[in-house]
């Protein structure tokens, strides 16, 4: 059982997860550097799957690297690039190396990336992928062919509380829960009222306590990334006053940090929320500062790098 699954099912503790950086050149070296920054702070780190429709080192390779570096991977799988056969192969391949946490996403469209001429796949959609993951967890491929023993899996999905249609987002949560999702990482949302409404809706639908809600925050250095997210990331709207607040500050980097802290504290107070997901675009001391300000204590084990799953037969 993964740490995340254990904490979410057997304890009342909050879980903290983070987005692992995409890997390109010098992948393993960079992976080690990122892992060392995150070590001891997080219950799981997301191995992303071609973020924003840009090609990078694969989700499977990144998840295995994270595992070998002693952290717990959460392997994202998007529906944009691969059909159901390839998705099943990736899940089985990753589980061979001890990857247990999986999260299903629809994924940004190819037109959001730097190769918009590529063919989009979307053989399955997000909720269908959740159910496929659950099928594998039960010990079967989609065809019904048995998998013995069935892989150990903890399955999650994502949702965007900040994009219309707002009421319908809660119904989507119910659907993903019914398909087998046990946790839900949320898209970054700069509208506190929308997050409040979403969490209240999940509670009213009787789903709080059944599916763990994990909202996201992002560490940025100033107004530029806020503008970028607002203008270029599908489904993210950053209100003008939030951008102005950072832009007009005498110390924009400090103002941006305080804004993130405020959103993190607000998110953690919402009903049904069982943790926080952090994306770090700053690469500075504010990652540690945020965790400390949120009352977390770093847990460093005596073993610097665990490699018990490294290519074991």
């Amino acid at each position, binding site marked *: 059982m993964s740490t995340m699954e254990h904490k979410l099912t057997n304890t009342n503790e909050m879980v903290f997860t983070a987005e692992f950086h995409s890997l390109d050149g010098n992948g393993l070296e960079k992976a080690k550097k990122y892992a060392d920054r995150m070590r001891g702070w997080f219950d799981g780190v997301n191995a992303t799957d071609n973020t924003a429709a840009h090609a990078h080192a694969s989700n499977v390779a990144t998840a295995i690297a994270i595992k070998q570096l002693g952290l717990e991977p959460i392997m994202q799988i998007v529906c944009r690039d691969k059909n159901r056969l390839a998705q099943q192969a990736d899940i089985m391949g990753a589980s061979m190396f001890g990857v247990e946490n999986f999260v299903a996403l629809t994924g940004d469209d190819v037109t959001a990336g730097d190769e918009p001429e590529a063919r989009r796949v979307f053989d399955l959609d997000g909720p269908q992928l959740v159910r496929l993951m659950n099928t594998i967890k039960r010990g079967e491929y989609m065809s019904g062919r048995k998998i013995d023993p069935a892989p150990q899996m903890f399955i999650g999905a994502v949702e*965007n509380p900040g994009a219309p249609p707002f009421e319908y987002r809660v119904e989507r949560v119910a659907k993903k829960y019914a398909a087998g999702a046990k946790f839900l990482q949320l898209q970054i949302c700069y509208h506190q009222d929308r997050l409040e409404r979403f969490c209240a809706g999940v509670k009213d639908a009787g789903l709080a306590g059944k599916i763990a809600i994990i909202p996201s925050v992002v560490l940025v250095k100033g107004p530029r990334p806020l503008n970028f997210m607002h203008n270029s990331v*599908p489904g993210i709207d950053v209100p003008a006053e939030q951008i102005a607040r950072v832009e007009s500050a005498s110390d924009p980097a400090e103002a941006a940090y305080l804004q993130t802290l405020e959103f993190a504290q607000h998110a953690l107070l919402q009903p049904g929320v069982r943790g926080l997901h952090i994306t770090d675009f700053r690469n500075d001391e504010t990652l540690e500062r945020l965790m400390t300000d949120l009352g977390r204590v770093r847990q460093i084990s005596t073993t610097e790098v665990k490699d018990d799953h490294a290519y074991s037969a």
Partner: protein
Amino acid sequence: MTTFIATIEHVVKGPVWGCQDCGQCVLHSTGMTCPMNCPKTLRNGPCGGVRENGHCEVKPEMKCVWLKAYDRTQDWPLPSTWKAEYNHLRPPVDNRLKGTSSWKNFFTKRDRWTPPGWKNSTDESIASGVEI
């Protein structure tokens, strides 16, 4: 005869619903809005990329297919049994049915076939798991 039915269906449903000939029509359960017109061909609701104005991430000039489906399901005088199916988890598309008549597939029940693994994962067996 089969081709003839498929042609008739295409002529009727193409101009009215933007039918993409998937051969497994779910129009009645999606507020008479064809989900195959979503650029990502999503059958189970909108993605997270819907714009502030409710338009599509991929085609900014087009209203999100699923917003349309949601509004129509609420507002149009459709049979309640159809409306009740709106939130059903629709199975993955059977790509072998592309270009065939969904009318025929409905009457022969061919469109109700799902892969055995999918069928065995009932919502009840999943949702009764450990509470978080």
